[in-house]
């Protein structure tokens, strides 16, 4: 731009904005949001996010649960038996309490076996827990399958 050009005589310096004050306010708003988020996470969600009840808790709350559908977690403590009509019966245990499960839903994965942790979804029918879905839990431990071992992943 050449000197004397009328347009360049304009003051093009960026004007000072009251930036400091505004960004300070924004940080406070951010803080309030974060605190609210933290509250929701630690308090509100904590109760609502119970993904399953353990076997002992389910039995304690049996009356309240009535025929509500819920998830129950435990270890398979008996060899599962499948009858001719495809119904699987087994026992799950947790903290010394056991519960008989009759599974009438889709077949679980190959990982389902004696000793495995499972989450069963269903409801109480009398003394039996009737399950419509078996989710097989896997622990965070990963153990290499030795070559001399028979079968893989069963």
């Amino acid at each position, binding site marked *: 731009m050449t000197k004397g050009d009328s347009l360049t005589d304009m003051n093009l310096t960026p004007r000072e904005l009251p930036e400091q004050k505004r960004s300070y306010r924004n940080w406070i708003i951010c803080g309030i949001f974060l605190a609210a988020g933290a509250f929701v996470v630690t308090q509100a969600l904590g109760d609502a996010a119970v993904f399953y009840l353990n076997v002992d808790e389910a039995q304690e709350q049996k009356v309240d649960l009535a025929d509500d559908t819920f998830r129950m*977690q435990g270890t398979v403590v008996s060899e599962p038996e499948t009858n001719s009509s495809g119904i699987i019966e087994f026992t799950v245990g947790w903290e010394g309490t056991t519960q008989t499960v009759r599974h009438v839903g889709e077949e679980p994965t190959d*990982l389902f076996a004696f000793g495995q942790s499972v989450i069963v979804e269903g409801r109480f029918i009398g003394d039996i827990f009737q399950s419509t879905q078996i989710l097989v*839990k896997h622990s965070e431990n*990963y153990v290499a399958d030795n070559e001399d071992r028979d079968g893989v992943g069963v």
Partner: protein
Amino acid sequence: MTRVTTTQSEDAKSAKSKAPRDAFGTASKLTRVFGVAAFVLTSALLVFALVISPPEVIQGESVRLFYIHVPSAIVSLYLAFSITLVGSIIYLRKKSIFWDLMAGAAAEIGVIFCAITLITGMLWGRPTWGVYWKWDPRLTSTAVSFLLYVGYLAVRKLELPPHVRRQRAAILGIISFANLIIVRYSVQWWRSLHQGTTLDPVDTQLDGSMLFSFFLGMLAMIAIGAWLLVHRFRVAWMEERKAEQSLAAAIVERQSEGRS
């Protein structure tokens, strides 16, 4: 006069030799190093993850998904989105366009790796749990993170004055990070279907060659992520320059209009 000519010809020469790369490309020595590293490490990962490492005693072959699932989760949720957080903070403090663009580029890479994490997790969930998806705390919080950062990328595309858009994006880039803390601790705070922390720094629950395959996966994903990040950042930088140039050109045009 002679001197001026020399300088001009030197300028022309250097412009000629630099032009194709600097003006129209996003590659550099750094991206070549990352690119080659990504290729070599991914090749090694394929061999280790698919051939050399053993099947798991309970899960069998599906454990091999671990070597992609966990590294991509770490690269996405912890590395990429951390860069977005840092970039957003620096932008708000110093109004540095470099860091604004870096935050955006990192979020894009993070979203891609987060999608990989979700997809490999679903593919792994079916043969293990029996379902592709359950709304358990870890899965839900990860999905929320994915959506938050997609939202962040959407904010970056809003038709707003650049400084307003950058500021809003930066605030969202900071707030979104809070959810990652929930993702990290979800398996400890709440009951979940998802397994707990395998890679405890003190007590790793992973056998020998499995651990090595995991580290290879980690390095491969970091190399791929870094490689993409540098390229993506340079594209964003060039877009920024282009926008500036068209603005400058428009000003010149208006000025010449005013003169005539």
